[in-house]
């Protein structure tokens, strides 16, 4: 058997085996059903939620799964959009002005060391519970990754030969930027976008979980406190599936971009 296919098969059997173990543990009652639902039931519940379109829990303000999904999706998109809109120009600015970059560098690299999430209660204090606070939190998580990777991306473009080629072709400065630096930096820029998007997802869903009234993160939180274990696991599963699918797709594109540059 080929090595890669052997790895693939083992990978999937590890996943299926782990799910099977959880299934058995829950079905045989080693762990109570109110604590751990069987994995098959998680999928079934999730499927039911999608078919009926609603979540059969009382006191839940917005009980449609599509509605909650839509809210989370809009918060993620908005925070990502603004992270790119503001982060990219700042990154380019830092690449252009080296002194400024050196000044800000220690603060940028230690940004993710600080539990930025501690700012969420402060933001809620300013703007109240709602889409604005959550989007802002996602944005705060995402923007620095975009800034750092944009600056590194342009920095790593070959400075000796590429710009000379551009000048010998008598390209204007803006054209050199657009046709030489920009494509050269693309893989790094994409890494920034990938991290930015993933951080947006994490920031948004975590905020929803901690303090909010809508969204997928809130769904997990609510069903936990309402003792609706099945729905809780189903919504957890949904979040994990979404995150893994998006991460997988982004990593593929990234690998393709780096491979295309022949690095």
């Amino acid at each position, binding site marked *: 058997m080929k090595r890669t296919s052997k*790895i693939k098969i*083992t*990978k999937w059997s*590890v*996943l299926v085996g782990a799910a099977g173990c959880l299934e058995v543990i829950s079905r045989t009652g080693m762990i109570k059903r109110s*604590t*751990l639902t069987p994995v098959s039931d998680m999928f079934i519940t999730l499927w039911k939620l999608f078919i009926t379109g609603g979540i059969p829990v009382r006191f839940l303000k917005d009980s449609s799964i599509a509605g909650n999904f839509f809210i989370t999706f809009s918060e993620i998109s908005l925070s990502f959009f603004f992270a790119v809109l503001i982060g990219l120009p700042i990154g380019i600015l830092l690449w252009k002005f080296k*002194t*400024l970059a*050196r*000044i*800000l560098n*220690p*603060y940028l690299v*230690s940004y*993710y*060391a*600080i*539990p930025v*999430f*501690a*700012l*969420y*209660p*402060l933001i*809620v*204090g*300013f703007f109240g519970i709602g889409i604005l606070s959550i989007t802002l939190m996602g944005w705060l998580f995402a923007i620095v990754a975009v800034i750092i990777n944009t600056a590194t991306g342009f920095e790593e473009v070959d400075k000796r030969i590429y710009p000379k080629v551009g000048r010998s072709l008598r390209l204007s400065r803006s054209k050199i930027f657009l046709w030489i630096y920009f494509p050269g930096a693309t893989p790094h820029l994409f890494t920034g976008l990938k991290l930015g998007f*993933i951080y947006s*997802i*994490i920031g948004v*869903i*975590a905020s929803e*979980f*901690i*303090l909010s009234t809508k969204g*997928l*993160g809130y769904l*997990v*939180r609510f069903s*936990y406190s309402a003792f609706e274990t099945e729905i*809780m696991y189903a*919504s*957890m599963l949904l*979040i*994990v599936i979404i*995150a*893994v699918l*998006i*991460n*997988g797709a982004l*990593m593929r594109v990234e690998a393709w971009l780096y491979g295309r540059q022949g690095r």
Partner: protein
Amino acid sequence: MTLKRRREILIKLGMAAMPALVILLWQIGFVLFGELILPSPLKTFSVLKAGLIERGWLLSDLKDTMIELLFGYLFAVILGLLVGFVLGMNRFLREVLEPFVLNVYAIPKVTLFPIFLFAFGLGMDSKVAFGFFHGIFPIIILTMGAIKDIKGVYIKVGRSFRLNPFQVYKEIVFPSILPSLMTGLRLGFNLSFIGVILGEMAASKSGLGYALMRSEGAFYMEKIISIVVVLAVIALAVNSFCYAIEGRLMRVRGT
């Protein structure tokens, strides 16, 4: 040369001026929005001082958070090094398990916190476990990568010097993975810290994260900002210490 030196001085001054700039903006915000929404820096610092020294409202929560962090991080380091080491040595295992390890990074792990609550209860144990769960992955990934990247030539040199396996580890493997190891340990600490704070914010009976949520409920902005400052200072202190060690290791290696 003088131009270059003047630029260096400007950079140093700029770095030092950044915190002052933040406090200035904060003061402007206070003047614009008023006491209720954004308390003044001065008042906040007096509340912070009271929390740490005079009245001590911060201290018991700080103690609990530090204990949780210490144990969570300790477990993450021990198990993370072990797993990372095994995965680094065994190529097949690594290629099988790597996608799992990498994907956990992308999942909003807080949403899995109820599982930790089920398993470990509302007390400090669940935060220790959650801090561990956050911190272990970067340690695994960087240890694994470092061992994978040791150049075969080095090991061969060791063999030709007739080093025994123990000596190979001591003289070759350990020194060459040390810088990445330090980075892994630093990132692991950061994530363990975030994990503990998030766990406390989500559901807890004590700790700084819990104090944050409590102050949010009471709309006590001075306390919220004080806690944020304390968290940031702890994170920055540990990180600059780690950066210093990492820089030293790099210099020793001459890279």
